[in-house]
């Protein structure tokens, strides 16, 4: 029985990680095609990635869009969570439902909707519109994470702050936000990774300046090439690094 379980686990992890392993392996291919057989080890495709101005520029764009859109999503999500957790609104549950609904809509639909809206309002496509798209998909997520961490005990603490003379914006800034900061950071981390990977919306809403997934896609159109493997590996590495950094940061917070 144990061997069966072990084999099953192995098959499962193989299924999940084999594509990544193959991708990374053939990014070091000493040859022109990222297909077997493996002809030898070379880092020249990485050199090509980092000397390709378009790719490096796209990488910077991606990071910029990810950080800015995630910050906006966290801010909006936090404010919505605070309002819905603290005030008894008529139809509060419905408002909450509407806020979370975009989580169930496909990115393609959201991207198309935004594209049409931007066309109608005459907003030209740019990294800013991509950022808006990513804020749209990540705000419900940030809202859900922060809302879940707002308890009744914190409401008393906010009451204490008001009692001591704090105006509403200072209660938010000095008391409410710091108390749920772990959730806000978690929401930010998730948003960044989602935005970093996102293709459809970025593709539909960008024009001359593009994000990394869009740049990779245009590379793929010119055929398979170990450069795409190398840049894919870089994307993967950065994602893993992000996850590790946040994990370590949270572990340190918990330990305190």
């Amino acid at each position: 029985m144990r061997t069966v379980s072990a084999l099953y686990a192995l098959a499962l992890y193989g299924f999940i990680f084999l594509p990544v392993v193959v991708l990374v392996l053939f990014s070091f291919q000493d040859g022109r095609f990222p297909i077997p057989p493996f002809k030898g080890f070379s880092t020249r495709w990485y050199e090509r990635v980092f000397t390709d101005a378009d790719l490096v520029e796209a990488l910077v764009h991606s990071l910029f869009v990810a950080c800015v859109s995630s910050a906006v999503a966290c801010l909006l999500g936090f404010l919505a969570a605070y309002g819905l957790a603290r005030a008894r609104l008529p139809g509060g549950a419905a408002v909450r439902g509407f806020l979370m609904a975009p989580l169930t809509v496909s990115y393609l639909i959201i991207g198309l909707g935004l594209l049409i809206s931007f066309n109608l309002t005459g907003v030209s496509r740019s990294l800013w519109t991509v950022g808006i798209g990513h804020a749209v998909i990540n705000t419900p997520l940030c809202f859900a994470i922060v809302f879940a961490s707002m308890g009744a005990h914190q409401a008393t603490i906010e009451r204490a702050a008001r009692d001591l003379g704090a105006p509403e914006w200072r209660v938010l800034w000095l008391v409410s936000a710091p108390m749920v900061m772990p959730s806000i950071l978690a929401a930010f981390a998730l948003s960044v990774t989602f935005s970093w990977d996102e293709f459809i919306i970025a593709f539909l809403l960008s024009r001359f300046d593009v994000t990394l997934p869009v740049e990779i896609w245009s590379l793929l159109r010119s055929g398979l090439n170990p450069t795409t493997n190398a840049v894919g590996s870089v994307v993967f590495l950065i994602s893993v690094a992000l996850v590790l950094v946040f994990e370590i940061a949270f572990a340190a917070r918990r330990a305190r």
Partner: protein
Amino acid sequence: MTAPVEIEAITRRFGRVTVLDAVSLELEAGEFAVLLGPSGCGKTTLLNIIGGFLDASAGTVRIGGNDVTQLPAAQRPTTTVFQDYALFPHMTIAQNVAFGLRMRGERRRARLARAAEMLELVGLPGMARRRPHELSGGQRQRVALARALAVRPEVLLLDEPLGALDLKLRRAMQDELKTIQREVGTTFIHVTHDQEEAMAIADRVVLMNAGRIEDQGSPERVYLRPQTAFSAAFMGEINTIPGTAEDGGVATPLGHITVAHHLAVGQKAMLCVRPEHLLRQRPAIGQATVQDGAFFGTHTRVHLSVEGLPDLIAHLPVGAEIKPGDAVPLTPDTDAMFVLPRDPQ
């Protein structure tokens, strides 16, 4: 700082339920008042209305002569010590205590100096740089007190502040609260359901029941001469002997008992005596049989059965030789007895 508090006909309804029914109360500046009552009596609701956390459905709250009924909590000259302390978990103890002063725009050095002074007052010097989670429950409660007093409120509201502490700590904190109140002179309004705590600290006990003030006065007055049957029973154990008011006393199944009262002759009455006043080597008014006794440390509590009456409870000094089955004369201190009207039932 200190100020008188006037509460005028405060009513509060939650939907169809009336939690406070036209409650009026006047407290003098510097008074230590305790709102006492069973849970659901409206005492916490009244405190929240004074503090500005809850709107009254009707009525007026005046502090120092100013109508504050419409002011939000942040603008009232009151601060609150919450039951669960409600310290800011992400700030140091000094930052917690100095928070109110920061909101008032005081400079950093001035407010940290004041915080140190307040921590000294509540007996926590040298804790300034700790964080709330490093402190014990009793210490957190002291920090909450220091934080509320740091802004020099005219009125301090305490919402069952000792409820979460163990008995020994609670007694110690009661004494300390009383001392601190005398030192700062602020009007304190303290909510509790523990009548012993109320008597230990209050200048004035305000006993509430079902949204109304049932009785109020000094602890001695409310305990020894309660105005209603509810307050007699809530303040401590009480023996009641049914009877009828007569001139200069009450006619009971034990005969005429001479006791002062304000009832009309012929009115149904209830003669009340506390267990510690029942066996006091005065003239006997009847005979009783000891049923059982239990040792309580400071006294022995015995059940007595008397012909024609419900069972009585008496407290005897420790060392009294008494066994179940013994016959004892009932020798109450008639000066400590009081008479209340009895519902015709």
